[in-house]
């Protein structure tokens, strides 16, 4: 009887461990920041790409209903692919797009914009990448949707898709 109980306990422990690991196999292990909602935007100042003028992000965001901060670089292929989506979003009246040029050469960044068009109201620079870390970004490209109170409403990691632009439009309207 005692042997039977130990056998049952051992088997159930084994089954439990098997189920946990089996379920874990199908779980996406890539980190996605889910608790980002309504977090305040980190305050930072940076130089403008074209005029080298120091600009404070909070001043920029505070007088706009909705702002998108898009981290991009001329060397980043997904940034090129998402650019047309940003161009479409730039036509929305209630939305301002601010670019944060990540670890890029000024010449290449300017060429990128002149070749593909400029969806940005302002382009700030992040030459050593520390501003992006302060923002809580973890890759290029990355897009943040921010409201007038400097709260992050949405964060899109990676290339901004057409479906995500529709979602942004829905939030704004």
């Amino acid at each position, binding site marked *: 009887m005692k042997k039977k109980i130990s056998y049952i306990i051992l088997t159930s422990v084994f089954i439990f461990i098997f189920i946990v690991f089996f379920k874990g196999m199908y779980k996406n*292990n*890539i*980190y996605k*920041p889910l*608790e980002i909602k309504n977090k305040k935007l*980190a305050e930072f100042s940076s130089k403008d790409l074209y005029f080298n003028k120091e600009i404070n992000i909070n001043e920029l965001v505070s007088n706009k209903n909705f702002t998108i901060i898009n981290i991009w670089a001329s060397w980043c292929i997904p940034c090129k692919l998402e650019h047309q989506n940003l161009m479409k979003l730039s036509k929305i009246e209630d939305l301002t797009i601010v670019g944060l040029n*990540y*670890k890029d050469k000024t010449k290449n960044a300017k060429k990128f914009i002149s070749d593909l068009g400029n969806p940005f109201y302002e382009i700030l620079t992040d030459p*050593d*990448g*520390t501003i*992006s*870390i*302060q*923002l*809580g*970004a*973890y*890759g*290029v490209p990355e897009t943040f949707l921010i409201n007038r109170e400097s709260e992050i409403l949405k964060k899109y990691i990676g290339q901004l898709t057409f479906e995500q632009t529709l979602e942004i439009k829905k939030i704004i309207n």
Partner: protein
Amino acid sequence: MRSLKYILIAIFCLFILQENLKANQSSFLVDKISKNLRCLICQGQSVYDSQSDFALSMKLLIKKKINEGNSEEQIYTYLKNQYGEWIVYDPELNKKNLLLWAFPLILFIIGGLLIFRKVFNNY
């Protein structure tokens, strides 16, 4: 006049030595903190081991924070606030990971009891 020259050289050397020590301390702390942080891009590596652009930027930010006078704990808190508990290799005890922390202890107690029973029964 000559002794004044020697004194000035000695002060200058001391100043350089002190600056060097400060820089070494700061770089030691950057290494220590970055070893405890998970890389954002190569998620199996620490920030210290990774050569990705974001890991390099993070090391720079840690260095800036140290130079601003932030303590090790303040830097961890700041990064946890930006990226969540996930960023550190040593997560705090909370409701979500209670079982993870308690499981080894439970196993240890059960194992200890089994050994104790076995030894006690033999006597």
